[in-house]
C-alpha cells in the first residue's frame, strides 16, 4: 500500500511535470516542470532497484540538461515572450494523433502477456553494471565516451561566437 502511495506521488510528479512541459506557455516554467518530471523519474528508479540510475538521472537531467535548457532559455529570452501561442499549425493534428497513439500503445501494453519474473532483484547492481560496462558492453561504452567528447567539442564550436572565433 505504501508503495502504491509513493508510486502515485511520483506519478503525479512525472506526469504532472510532463503535462506542464507541454502545456505551459512560459518556457521557463516548462523547464522547471521538466526538472520536476525528471526528479519524479529518479524516484521511480529508486523504486525499481536502480539507485545508481536515480543518482545519474538527477545529476545529468536535473543538474545538467535542465540547467542547460534554462540557460538556453535565458540566453534567448528576447523571444521568450509568453503572449503569443506557443503551438504551431499542426497542433490540432498532434492533439488527435498523440492520444490515438497513446491509446494504441496502452492497448498493446495491456494485451501483451508480459513474462514477469518473480525472482529477487539483484543486490550488487553497481558491481554488475561496472562489470558490464568494462566487459560485454566495453565497445559501446567507449563509443559513448567518444560521442560525448565529440558532442562536447561540437557544442563548443557551434555555440562559439562567430565573430570572436574569427579573431
Amino acid at each position, binding site marked *: 500500500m505504501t508503495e502504491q502511495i509513493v508510486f502515485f506521488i511520483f506519478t503525479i510528479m512525472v506526469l504532472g511535470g510532463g503535462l506542464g512541459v507541454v502545456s505551459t506557455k512560459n518556457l521557463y516554467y516548462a523547464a522547471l516542470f521538466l526538472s520536476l518530471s525528471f526528479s519524479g523519474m529518479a524516484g521511480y528508479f529508486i523504486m525499481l532497484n*536502480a539507485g545508481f540510475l536515480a543518482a545519474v538521472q538527477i545529476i545529468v537531467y536535473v543538474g545538467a540538461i535542465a540547467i542547460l535548457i534554462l540557460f538556453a532559455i535565458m540566453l534567448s529570452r528576447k523571444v521568450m515572450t509568453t503572449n503569443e501561442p506557443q503551438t504551431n499549425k499542426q497542433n490540432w493534428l498532434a492533439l488527435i494523433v498523440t492520444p490515438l497513439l497513446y491509446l494504441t500503445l496502452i492497448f498493446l501494453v495491456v494485451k501483451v502477456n508480459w513474462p514477469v519474473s518473480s525472482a529477487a532483484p539483484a543486490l550488487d547492481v553497481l558491481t554488475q553494471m561496472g562489470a558490464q560496462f568494462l566487459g560485454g558492453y566495453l565497445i559501446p561504452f567507449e563509443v559513448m565516451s567518444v560521442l560525448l567528447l565529440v558532442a562536447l567539442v561540437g*557544442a563548443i564550436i557551434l555555440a562559439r561566437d562567430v565573430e570572436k572565433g574569427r579573431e
Partner: protein
Amino acid sequence: MQNIPLTWWLSVATALFSLGLYGALSRKNAIAILMGLELMLNAVNINLVAFNRYITPQNVTGQVFAVFVIAIAAAEAAVALAIIIAAYRQRGTVNVDDLDSMKF
C-alpha cells in the same frame, strides 16, 4: 514491489511518451521541442528499467542501456542547445517555423 504491476509502469511511460511526442509535434519553440524529446527519452528509460526489474531482475542490462540512453540524451541536448543558440545568434529566432531553409 509486486504490489505494483508492470503495466502500471508501462502505462505511465506510455503516457509520458505521448506527452513528449505531443510536445515535440506541436510546440513552436525549438527548446520546447527539445524538452519534448527529452521526455520521450525518459519514457523509454522508465520502460527499460521497469522491464529490467520485472522481467530479468537478476541482471542489470536494462539499466546499462538506460545509462547509454542518458549519455546520448546528454550529448544530444548539448549539441541541440548549441545549435539553437547559434541559430538564435544568426537568425534572431528559435521558432522552428522560421527555420526552414532546408525546404525544397
